[in-house]
């Protein structure tokens, strides 16, 4: 049944995924096992197919949304500290910038990969980012900027996090057309994603690193 669930998730077949998730729970399979052995591997395949150009973004999003539905079903059965998946990510487009498709896409795929995503929208000021980090204690803060003129707000936000004493508690992941790895390094961000696939990969690496800090 787990294999069928994985297949259904890859196909984005919401009804089947929901039914199989419930059936597995009913047959005594633990929520953790369903997540780790059926759902997350399914999203891995979808991610790989996206990177190789085998499937289209709207299809990936369908799988991601389907994954969300399954997570809702699993949530009550996961341990309290266990969370639905990989942790929380707060994401937003910086002040003065209203480009939002890329950021939304990244948010949806992160959700599909197992993160809980808080999307702050566009034109988010440094103080608003700080407040959201305080409120949601996310593992990762994601910032998007599409304009060279709004890039400085990323640095401001990082400085504001530092000032608020929150910088050590959250990883900062950035992206958007003018952002480069060099810029991310210069800024002291923890990661950069050139596209949604890379964003998910980097986010996963960042939480894995946070879980085993001595490994790096």
């Amino acid at each position: 049944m787990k294999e069928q669930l994985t297949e259904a998730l890859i196909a984005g077949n919401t009804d089947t995924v929901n039914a199989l998730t419930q059936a597995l729970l009913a047959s005594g399979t633990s929520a953790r096992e369903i997540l780790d052995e059926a759902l997350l591997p399914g999203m891995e395949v979808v991610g790989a197919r996206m990177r190789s150009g085998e499937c289209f973004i709207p299809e990936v999003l369908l799988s991601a949304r389907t994954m969300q539905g399954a997570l809702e079903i699993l949530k009550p059965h996961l341990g309290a500290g266990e969370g639905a998946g990989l942790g929380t990510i707060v994401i937003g487009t910086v002040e003065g910038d209203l480009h939002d498709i890329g950021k939304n896409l990244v948010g949806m795929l992160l959700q599909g990969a197992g993160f809980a995503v808080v999307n702050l929208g566009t034109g988010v000021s440094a103080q608003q980012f700080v407040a959201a980090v305080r409120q949601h204690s996310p593992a990762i803060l994601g910032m998007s900027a599409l304009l060279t003129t709004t890039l400085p707000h990323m640095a401001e936000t990082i400085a504001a996090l530092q000032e608020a004493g929150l910088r050590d508690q959250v990883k900062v992941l950035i992206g958007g057309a003018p952002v480069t790895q060099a810029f991310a390094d210069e800024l002291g961000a923890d990661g950069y994603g050139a596209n949604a696939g890379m964003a998910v990969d980097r986010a996963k690496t960042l939480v894995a690193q946070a879980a085993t800090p001595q490994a790096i």
Partner: protein
Amino acid sequence: MSGISGNAARSGGYVGGVLRPHLSMLDAAAIEYVHEQSLRLLAEVGVRVPLARAQTLLKDAGAVVDDETQIVRFPRDLIESAIARAPKTVLLAARDPQKDALLDHTRSFATHDGMGAMCLDHRSGERRPSTARDLLEAMTVADALDEIGVLWYTAYPCDEEPRLQSLRGLQSMLAGSGKHVQGEVTDPAHVPYVMDILAAANPGGVWQAERPIFSIVYCPVSPLQHDAESLEAAILLAEQGVPITVYSLAIAGATAPITQAGTTVQTNAEELAAFAILQLAVPGCPLVYVGNAGIMDMRTSTYTSAGPEEILLNLALTEMGRHYGFPVLSCGLSSDAKELCVQVGSDGGPMAFCTILAGADLLTGAGMLDSAQLLYLPKLVLDAELVRQGQRLTAGLALDDEHVMLDVTRRVGPGGHFLAARETRRFLRNGELQLPHVFVRGSYDGWLADGRSESQRATEKVDEILATHHPLPLPDGAAQRIEEIIAAAGEEKTAE
């Protein structure tokens, strides 16, 4: 207008004249259908306008404004009166009056692509963030190319203080060319500085609303929204007589329906809504309709600016804009390719020709690779060559007894040749055959002896222009004055 149009009356047979090709895809019924669907969209779904000042104007004009969602539903007559009120010809004046671009539907003026933030350095071959110098050079090269009629803020000066990049960009554009320049102003606080800079650059030191040397590209935010700050800035500039190109850059599949039909209707609706808002705010203000939209590449989720569907979108939208009588900007020359290669020409050429043949007044797209993100000056030279070809197409086919040359053929007779005929020399000198500037014709050996590749020839042309071309200088003292204005803007910014 020279010659007789191809549709001239041919009473009692063919009268002769110049036949100009024209590309049309929508018939009258289709135009009506797109118009009606656009009006339905505006009346039923509406547009978010988060600017109090605009909401008040719209309410007073009969629109239904939802105070909570800030969504405005437009009644038909509001849109139709805006269509009637918007000027049908627009002057994009130049510092050098001989370079004025009067958008009156008689020809297409090419412009840069934009507005990116990267440059493929033609000297080092390196891809890097664009600089003020790149922008200045892009202006100077385009200033020297007759085929480029209007200049765009093609690349940001990323080496300048971010908050002042728009003003620094304007400075480079004005210094680099005597032609009309089109830029962006999204911050209302910048408007007074922009107007001061424009006044300083104008002959006589004052801004002349009837001869606007600068216009802006204003972007509604697809789907069906406006940004308060940018809209405020646009209205403030419109009040000063600055023309506005309304560029609703929907991305089919992401911020608009994936179908060309859906994106056409949505884009048309977004353009019309913006026209309605701006015409209410500043009645009679000069606006340019944009007949173009983007497409999302669904494998990589990137923005795509070329390909056959792009051409279909351009054709449909250009035809809508022309139907309303507006000046229209559409796209051609743009390419998703990352290097100079076959794709550059096949993305850009057909699209440019279709746009020109559809009768767009402005043709954007020159000088960039990577979907309008990567400035590459040699491409500007190559694009100018494509524009010349497009101009030759619209110059059309002269068809009359003189051009059929039957007399000459009779004289030459079977087995003779036309090389010695006086008429051959005359028509040759009159431009019957266009000669390429950079593209290659002729023998293989000749090409081999020349020894240069296409990109080398284009690059040399760039270097030659940069070494020898001198754009119309700014009025005395203007450069100094502009520096002071930007310094003042910088101080105010830091004081904030």
